[in-house]
């Protein structure tokens, strides 16, 4: 049944080698008088991702050539560790689900590496940036390709580390470092859930093998209580990584990193790892629909909450960050209602249009010399035509306007929610779709239309260099046409992506009347049109920065959730720490530590008398020692 393919191991290996080489080169040359040229590092950084992308294409075609139910390539590189019954292989598995992830991760990863050559030019840590970015891509590919939860966890932690390193990349500013710390700490909470879920799973059914294929075969042995616990604990991990309630707070702050990082890690790839994991464990979530329902509700409430926040933000990257959280909520709603292929398809299209929007925002920020406040922009339409038109395509896709890619994937999720009988989730989803359209076009109108609000910055603005605009154009083509890959029957397609994913995920498509399908489509289109119209009326013609009051002020301050977390978790924890350091430590633990150190000091003083410093006295010691040893030996031998 399974086919082995040794080359799977090379897919994550190429970027990892790249990270090592670039990292070492940067380390040994950055202090030199004449550092290596940027072009050298840039070219070296792009080699790994591009090679991985070609291998991903090879994987895809090899899988496509196989009979549908046999589509799985495995490669067990080595036995990582074996303890008793537990045999963990450093194994890789490429099935339809991971091959789809592979394709877009390596493709968008390569594009963003190319874009970064332009965006990061002139940065003193140019080489370090590419080393981290390569390291990230390698870890992400391990995450996607891992043949079991343990290998996935290796990648999971790897991407978390790179996320932390890259958020804090501009480490001269304390705020950026704090944002990185926040992301790292919040992710630890999620990782604890992941580890606990994995342990429960191993404890229950791990004896038959701990990779996805064995787990899938043994899943029926799980009792409901353990099964639901495992699902929910794994979802806690997904919440951390994919920024869902209550652990979403780190993602908006993560925008402190360079913009290509926001595009690659915090929009297109890493944050969708949680969705990928839920789809990976679809055999568990569909066996325990209660857990799936929890996932779906958390997802859609996150989508609603972050859409509200997104409507009032003034930082262009924060608007996009909240829209990412919101779209991730949609994805979880999709996988939660057991429409795994719809959720993964939204991951796929979202990667294109969100990466596009971030890179476009990066081009704007680059042109305006690191101005990120949308209230200081305006009228850039004619100055940056390529950026403008590609971003409009991205915005239409994000808003879910037909026939852009976001429409098909989002509509598929909303329709699945309705078809599986989750009317509440569908209703909130449609409402959020309207809000999404509103805040996306609020951003577009404020940045590109109306009159320039900051005349001096406007005069200096210019279109980005072609190394930045070409990735934008490629992504815009993707954002425009990616949706047609999964055209539903009502538009004359046959859900190609869903059929492709069918062997990897456990789902069933309920048959519902065509009227419900039409209702789903028209309601979401109507919501989008209303959203864009309101944004057009309010912002198309040069609105001024408003005074936020009432609910808007509440939303602008993100419902004071950060302050709440600070008061409820951070401050008590700090107080607890200071109590320990002030009372517990000096009075309880330190006493013993100090006692042992004074004992050693006294013993040393007592023995000091023997260290007289005269060579002949040491000779006496030696003679005495040798004599005693000889005496002992002669006693024992006879």
């Amino acid at each position, binding site marked *: 049944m399974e086919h082995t393919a040794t080359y799977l191991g090379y897919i994550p290996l190429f970027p990892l080698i790249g990270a090592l080489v670039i990292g070492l080169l940067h380390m040994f040359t950055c202090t030199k008088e004449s550092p290596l040229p940027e072009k050298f590092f840039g070219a070296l950084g792009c080699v790994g991702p591009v090679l991985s992308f070609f291998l991903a294409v090879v994987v895809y075609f090899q899988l496509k050539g196989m009979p549908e139910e046999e589509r799985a390539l495995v490669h067990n590189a080595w036995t990582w560790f074996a303890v008793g019954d537990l045999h963990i292989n450093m194994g890789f598995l490429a099935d339809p689900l991971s091959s789809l992830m592979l394709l877009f991760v390596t493709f968008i990863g390569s594009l963003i590496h190319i874009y970064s050559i332009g965006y990061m030019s002139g940065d003193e840590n140019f080489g370090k940036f590419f080393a981290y970015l390569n390291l990230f891509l390698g870890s992400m590919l391990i995450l996607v390709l891992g043949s079991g939860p343990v290998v996935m966890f290796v990648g999971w932690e790897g991407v978390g580390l790179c996320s932390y390193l890259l958020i804090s990349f501009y480490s001269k500013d304390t705020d950026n470092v704090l944002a990185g710390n926040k992301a790292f700490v919040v992710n630890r909470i999620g990782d604890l859930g992941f580890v606990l879920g994995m342990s429960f799973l191993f404890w229950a059914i791990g004896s038959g093998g701990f990779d996805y294929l064995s787990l899938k075969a043994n899943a029926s042995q799980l009792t409901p209580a353990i099964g639901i616990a495992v699902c929910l604990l794994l979802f806690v991990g997904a919440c951390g990584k994919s920024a869902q309630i209550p652990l979403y707070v780190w993602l908006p702050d993560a925008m402190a990193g360079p913009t290509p990082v926001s595009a690659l890690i915090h929009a297109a790839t890493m944050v969708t790892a949680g969705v990928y994991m839920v789809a990976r464990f679809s055999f568990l979530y569909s066996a325990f629909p209660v857990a799936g329902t929890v996932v779906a509700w958390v997802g859609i409430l996150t989508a609603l909450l972050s859409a509200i926040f997104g409507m009032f933000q003034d930082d262009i990257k924060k608007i996009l960050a909240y829209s990412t959280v919101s779209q991730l909520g949609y994805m979880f709603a999709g996988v939660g209602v057991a429409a795994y292929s719809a959720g993964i398809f939204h991951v796929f299209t979202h990667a294109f249009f969100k990466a596009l929007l971030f890179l476009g925002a990066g081009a704007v920020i680059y042109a305006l010399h690191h101005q990120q406040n949308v209230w200081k922009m305006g009228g850039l339409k004619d100055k940056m035509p390529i950026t403008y038109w590609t971003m409009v395509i991205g915005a239409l896709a994000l808003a879910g306007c037909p026939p852009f890619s976001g429409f098909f994937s989002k509509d598929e999720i909303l329709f699945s929610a309705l078809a599986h009988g989750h009317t509440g989730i569908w209703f909130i989803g449609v409402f959020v779709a309207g809000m999404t359209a509103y805040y996306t076009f609020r951003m577009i109108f404020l940045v590109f239309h109306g009159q320039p609000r900051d005349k001096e910055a406007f005069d200096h603005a210019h279109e980005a260099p072609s190394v930045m605009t070409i990735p934008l154009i490629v992504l815009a083509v993707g954002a425009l046409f990616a949706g047609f890959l999964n055209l539903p029957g009502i538009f004359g397609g046959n859900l190609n992506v869903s059929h492709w994913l069918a062997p990897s995920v456990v789902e069933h498509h309920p048959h519902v009347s065509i009227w419900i399908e039409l209702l789903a489509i028209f309601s979401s289109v109507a919501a989008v049109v209303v959203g864009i119209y309101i944004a057009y009326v309010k912002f198309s013609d040069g609105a001024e920065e408003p005074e936020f009051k009432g609910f808007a002020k509440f939303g602008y301050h993100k419902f004071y959730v950060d302050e709440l977390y600070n008061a409820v978790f951070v401050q008590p924890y700090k107080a607890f720490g200071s109590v320990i350091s002030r009372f517990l430590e000096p009075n309880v633990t330190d006493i013993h530590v100090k006692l042992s150190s004074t004992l050693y000091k006294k013993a040393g003083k007592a023995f*000091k008398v023997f260290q007289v410093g*005269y*060579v002949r006295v040491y*000779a006496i010691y030696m003679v005495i020692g040798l004599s005693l040893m000889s005496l002992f030996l002669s006693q024992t031998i006879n």
Partner: protein
Amino acid sequence: MIQDYLILSIILFCLGILGVVTRRNVFTVFMSIELMLNAANLAFIAFSRLHESMDGHVLAMMVMAVAAAEAALVLAVVILLHKHKGKLDTNVFSLLRG
């Protein structure tokens, strides 16, 4: 017969130890060490004779060669010590005093 040789060897060895332990001049200490080495040589030769084997002779030759090399080294060290402190009294060199 063999006891006589061994007793002589032990006497020489103990004289060597006594010299190392009691004398303060670096040269005397060094000569005492040489005395100990030769005491060991004497024991080797005696045993070699007793067992009618050449092994002890070989070792004795070896010890003499090593002693010659050591002498060259120690003389160099002694010159350095003298340059350093201007004296050859071992009590002067007590940097390791606790």
